């Protein structure tokens, strides 16, 4: 196959792929999830709005508190976590144009598979609590990243404690 011919094939395939990505209805807003929770950068994008606007996702992230932390190998909510989630529930009930994906994370101690399952338990604990506080289940999704997305990178408890987390990532609801 000549280089030119290869290039043509490649271009054709890329066009096909891009189209598939645009029309895939199951596709979730990955960019946003990475920005807020996946990498835990805390940077606000234009979509997040101003942190001083209580209706903005940026406000949710910074003032309400978008994450709760867990004790090692557990997924039950501490009283402190429950207070944060009370605030999250209230914000979500007030700002009905937004949905949320709850990301569960684990520290690096443990195997990849177990940590995926553990992160799912943590995300589920948060989801159930928020539903219990009146947030409609249909507005909440969960995903686990296991130990794949640490925000702190040292290998001791100070970092592990920050990585054992569930982050509530706000996204624009389908109805808006």
């Amino acid at each position: 196959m000549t280089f030119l011919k290869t290039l043509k094939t490649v271009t054709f395939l890329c066009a096909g792929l891009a189209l598939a990505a645009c029309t895939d209805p199951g596709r979730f807003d990955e960019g946003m999830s990475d920005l807020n929770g996946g990498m835990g950068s805390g940077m606000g994008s234009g979509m997040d709005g101003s942190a001083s606007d209580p209706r903005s996702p940026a406000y949710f992230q910074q003032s309400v508190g978008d994450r709760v932390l867990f004790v090692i190998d557990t997924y039950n909510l501490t009283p402190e976590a429950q207070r944060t989630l009370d605030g999250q529930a209230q914000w979500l009930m007030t700002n009905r144009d937004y949905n949320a994906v709850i990301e569960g994370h684990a520290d690096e101690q443990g195997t990849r598979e177990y940590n995926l399952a553990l992160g799912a338990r943590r995300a589920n604990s948060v989801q159930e609590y928020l539903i219990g506080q009146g947030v409609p289940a249909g507005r909440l999704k969960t995903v686990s990243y296991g130990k794949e997305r640490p925000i702190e990178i040292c290998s001791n408890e100070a970092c592990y404690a920050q990585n054992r987390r569930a982050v509530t990532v706000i996204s624009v609801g389908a109805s808006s």
Partner: protein
Amino acid sequence: MARILAQTFPAMRILALLGLCAGVFAAPVAAQNGPLRLEITEGVIEPMPFAIPTFVAGAGGGGQAAQDISTLIAADLSGTGLFREVPASAHISRVTSFSSPIQFADWKAVNAQALVTGAVDVDASGRLTVQFRVWDVFSGQELGSGQQFVGTQDGWRRIAHKIADQVYSRITGEGGYFDSRVVFVSETGPKDQRSKRLAIMDYDGANVSYLTDSSSLVLAPRFSPTGDRVLFTSYESGFPRIYVMDLAGMNRRSLPSQEGTMSFAPRFAPNGQTVVYSVESGGNTDIYTMDINSGASQRLTSAPSIETAPSFSPDGSQIVFESDRTGRNQLYVMGANGGEARRISNGDGNYGTPVWSPRGDLIAFTKQSQSRFHIGVMRTDGSNENLLTASFLDEGPTWAPNGRVIMFTRETQGESGQAGLYSVDISGRNLRQVPVGSGASDPSWSPLQ
């Protein structure tokens, strides 16, 4: 665009390799029962000295290939830790013709117990023909019979690996593992911004090529029993789902999954048609099987605990998996259709990622105990636990096709921590890093090609 280019090249090479074919050279079979035999035992052994003079290049050329192939065969054999090469500088005899009689006294004098001789020729169309013989120096007899492989020049590494497999096999009486590949996750970037892509390479780290780009997080690829397909977990949809990729065409598709659930930790059953995997729903993780063609699934466990990392026995009758039903992760075995599971691990600490050996006699696992991680093996009833490694983080064993060697992920500690691939034999000897050229994790070893 880079994504498709990266995928095109390995596919083209795979096609090229299909051109490689093996044929038996019609040589008279020498008397067999030579005393040369290396028994691979659990005890410490002295590596067997062998010599492999550079293969003789034919009239059509092939000098470079002869050098490369001889060197790679020697590297394969020495890399097992079971053999030690007598260096060329110590050789007394020179082998200048493949058909000349062997001067056994000269090889005895340098204490080579096994001798591998060979010849390489290139024909007008550029095809390589490689012949070889294996000799028992002390009895002066040939081990097995002469054989030849024919292939493209690009495929010289595969020819060398096939010959090394033959040599290994004739001396140990066991199957080899050199002509095999490994799929794994290539990792780049710091710990908090790590990119992962699926990659494939030869067992020794050569010929790395990529199967996906780094736009989506991918985890834990697993070879099919025939080495033609790979299962893996990808976050492409935003949520972990299982995909199957056909390596010849690089086509992939996701296995059916229910909205709102995660599916992960897939492995093929020995029939190549059934997949065993984990599904998380409502925070609870259990084990399922699916027929990969029809998409029909069957739930095998239903407990509120975590059940994950399932692996079939090579006869397809049983499944080993990990569960935290007692509060700690332990290993359990159940029938291929579920039912009552019996616990097989009994030590302190957490056990995970069990993998049944291709021989069926052992289960490899990850053990976490007192802040250390180990790769270990145990019999299938849980007896004779033997920890082969210890480090800050070792996990995810995979078996060489002959069940003698295990490859796994080792991650180093701290801010600059990086994952790499290591191999160790099942007696805990010969720990070595597999040179990959980037961070790497989650290896899965193919069957012998």
